[in-house]
């Protein structure tokens, strides 16, 4: 018989923890030695006893108080969600109450009371003005909240982290006070308002900021280095604007320089000796670009009558009853018009493409020059009849939609991960889901309309409609993700299922002939899923 194994070997053997090569030797010995055999039995019983004793008391810990509350740690996601919510509530609250109800609604009411025929321009003017003023104020106050919140949270985290390592209290207070030093966002924005008077930036004045000007009459004779947003009955620009010009007014007259793009909506828009480096976007009853004016980029103009005597360096696109071209177009002319006239001095370097009632709608004076071809594309109405499936634009557009929906979906599921657990179990269930969706689709606008009748309910109604529109968009995304997960049930993550599901939903909604109906039904099912989720969420939180 071999020698007895030592106590360590025996103990490890009883615990089943000896390496395999050592086990054989011990087993051989134990097979012949009854003393050791008994020793192993005892040791194993001891292990069982220890297991049992240690664990049994764990069932009833003597000194354990009641189960303490577990609070989940706040994650960045929660923070983002909270911030978004705060921001949205802030924004909606301020916007709706102040702008819409506080001022605009009262304003409109008093206006209707005082004049028989409401003056559209004043109304639009008031609205745009409010929007600009309140909008920028809100934006900055929200920015403040976010920046301040980040600073506070940051310094609290720093304190929590370093306090353990013996950070002196003075430093803690310093850290807490840090947010107080937060710079108020510099006002790189000037807002001037003079509802019944005149705002003039005189010839010798110069401003570095982006300016928002709202007045009965706005005159810019000096220099502005930023953008200018102006609204008023009459807007005249004879100075220099380095940035973009956005002008809404009854009469907009530009005779100075604009470094960027010009966007304008007016009753009459006139460029006289104007020098615009960028594009011109104009919508007005009457639009004229006179002889000495230059548009450095493209011009896109819509109105009753469009008259171009000056020079457009690139393309001119016009939608108008009559389009008169007597100047120079650097590239092409595209027109949707009742009548197009090319005067004696007209010179189009590229093609002239036009949509009109007849080929004769284009009248070309004897000495007018067109370097390219003249293409008649029939009546404007015919445009819509082309087969959309044959154009590349259609597919690009669908791809863009897919990409946008995918990004929105990712953000949505990141913010509200609970939405990932939705599923359409079977046929009956999806029918019920669609029914629920139909209810939401119809009921929300009706309820919103009813609420809107009471003036106090107006903000609520607007919120409801906004949420409803948002839900319509999100419905297909949620449905797409659900479908994707049903198909790829064994896949990890949300990316691929979301992408594939969205692609399927998009293709289904674009099927020839039945696409419209299919899209409608898919939206219903998606809305139903969303409603189900909200319903469940509300119920769970009530039960908790």
């Amino acid at each position, binding site marked *: 018989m071999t020698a007895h194994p030592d106590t360590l070997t025996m*103990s490890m053997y009883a615990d089943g*923890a000896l390496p395999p090569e050592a086990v054989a030797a011990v087993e051989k010995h134990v097979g012949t030695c009854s003393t050791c055999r008994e020793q192993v039995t005892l040791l194993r019983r001891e292990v069982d006893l220890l297991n049992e004793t*240690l664990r*049994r008391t*764990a069932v009833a*810990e003597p000194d354990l108080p009641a189960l303490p509350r577990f609070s*989940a740690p706040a994650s960045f996601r929660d923070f983002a969600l909270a911030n978004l919510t705060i921001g949205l509530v802030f924004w909606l609250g301020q916007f709706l109450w102040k702008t819409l109800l506080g001022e605009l609604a009262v304003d409109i009411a008093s206006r209707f009371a005082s004049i028989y025929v409401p003056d559209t321009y004043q109304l639009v003017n008031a609205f745009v003005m409010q929007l600009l003023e309140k909008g920028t104020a809100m934006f900055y106050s929200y920015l403040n909240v976010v920046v301040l919140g980040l600073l506070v949270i940051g310094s609290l985290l720093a304190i929590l982290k370093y306090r353990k390592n013996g950070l002196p209290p003075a430093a803690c207070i310093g850290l807490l006070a840090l947010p107080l030093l937060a710079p108020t966002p510099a006002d790189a924005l000037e807002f001037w308002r003079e509802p019944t008077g005149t705002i003039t930036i005189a010839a010798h004045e110069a401003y570095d900021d982006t300016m928002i000007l709202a007045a009965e009459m706005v005159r810019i004779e000096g220099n502005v280095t930023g953008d200018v947003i102006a609204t008023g009955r009459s807007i005249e620009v004879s100075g220099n604007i380095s940035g973009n010009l956005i002008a809404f007014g009854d009469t907009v007259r530009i005779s100075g320089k604009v470094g960027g793009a010009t966007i304008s909506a007016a009753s009459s828009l006139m460029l006289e000796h104007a020098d615009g480096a960028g594009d011109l976007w104009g919508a007005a009853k009457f639009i004229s670009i006179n002889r000495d004016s230059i548009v450095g980029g493209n011009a896109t103009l819509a109105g009753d009558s469009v008259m171009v005597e000056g020079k457009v360096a690139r393309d001119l696109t016009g939608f108008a009853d009559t389009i008169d071209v007597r100047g120079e177009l650097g590239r092409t002319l595209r027109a949707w018009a009742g009548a197009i006239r090319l005067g004696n001095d007209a010179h189009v370097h590229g093609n002239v493409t036009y949509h009109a009632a007849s080929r004769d709608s284009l009248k070309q004076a004897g000495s007018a020059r067109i370097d390219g071809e003249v293409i008649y594309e029939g009546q404007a109405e015919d445009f819509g009849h082309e087969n959309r499936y044959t154009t590349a634009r259609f597919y690009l557009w669908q791809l863009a939609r897919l990409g946008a929906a995918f990004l929105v979906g990712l953000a949505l599921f990141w913010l509200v991960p609970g939405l990932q*657990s939705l599923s359409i179990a079977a046929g009956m269930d999806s029918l019920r889901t669609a029914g629920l969706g139909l209810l939401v689709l119809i009921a929300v606008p009706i309820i919103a309309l009813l609420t809107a009748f009471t003036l106090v309910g107006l903000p609520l109604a607007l919120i409801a409609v906004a949420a409803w529109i948002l839900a319509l968009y999100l419905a297909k995304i949620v449905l797409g993700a659900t479908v994707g997960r049903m198909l790829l049930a064994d896949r990890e993550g949300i990316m691929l299922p979301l992408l594939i599901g969205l692609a399927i939903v998009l293709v289904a909604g674009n099927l020839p002939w039945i696409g419209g109906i299919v899209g409608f039904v898919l939206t219903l099912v998606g809305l139903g899923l969303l409603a189900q989720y909200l319903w469940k969420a509300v119920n769970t939180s009530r039960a908790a």
Partner: protein
Amino acid sequence: MSRKSAFGVLYTDYYRRVYGLCRRLLGAGQLAEDATQETFMRAYRSFHKFEPTQPFWQWIAAIASNHCVDLLRGRHRDAQLFGQEQAELDVADDTQLPILTHLENTEAADRLNALVAELPDRYRIPLVLAYYQGISYDDIASQLGITRTHVGVLLLRAKEKLRGALIATPEAGK
């Protein structure tokens, strides 16, 4: 069920066991309660890494014991927590002590638990890991950064200490 509510159920079900583990490693009191909270906090953060096919106890107990052992290591910053394997081997064997095979009553069980709590850290930690958490020598060895034989020695000495301590209180063990 959302992640939060699923975790809430597990929290309620496992709080006592996790607390038990922390208490056995750290001793009763605030420290063990804090360690338990910290364990669940860490588990919550990495809950997405948890494989539902694996027993939850195994997963959460590993988080808890890792955290507690880290805390204990902090206490022994100057000295080596688990000593030298050879030094431990050189300690005289108390082979004559009777092996514990049963306890007479629940008071004896309580006494045994109290004795475990009084063991030095280097004996108590492997003992709790092996017989409460229920992990193998190899897992203990890699968690504590010592060899498997070292684990065996520490466990053997721990058991010998318990045997001796119970003999000293005659009515407890047999």
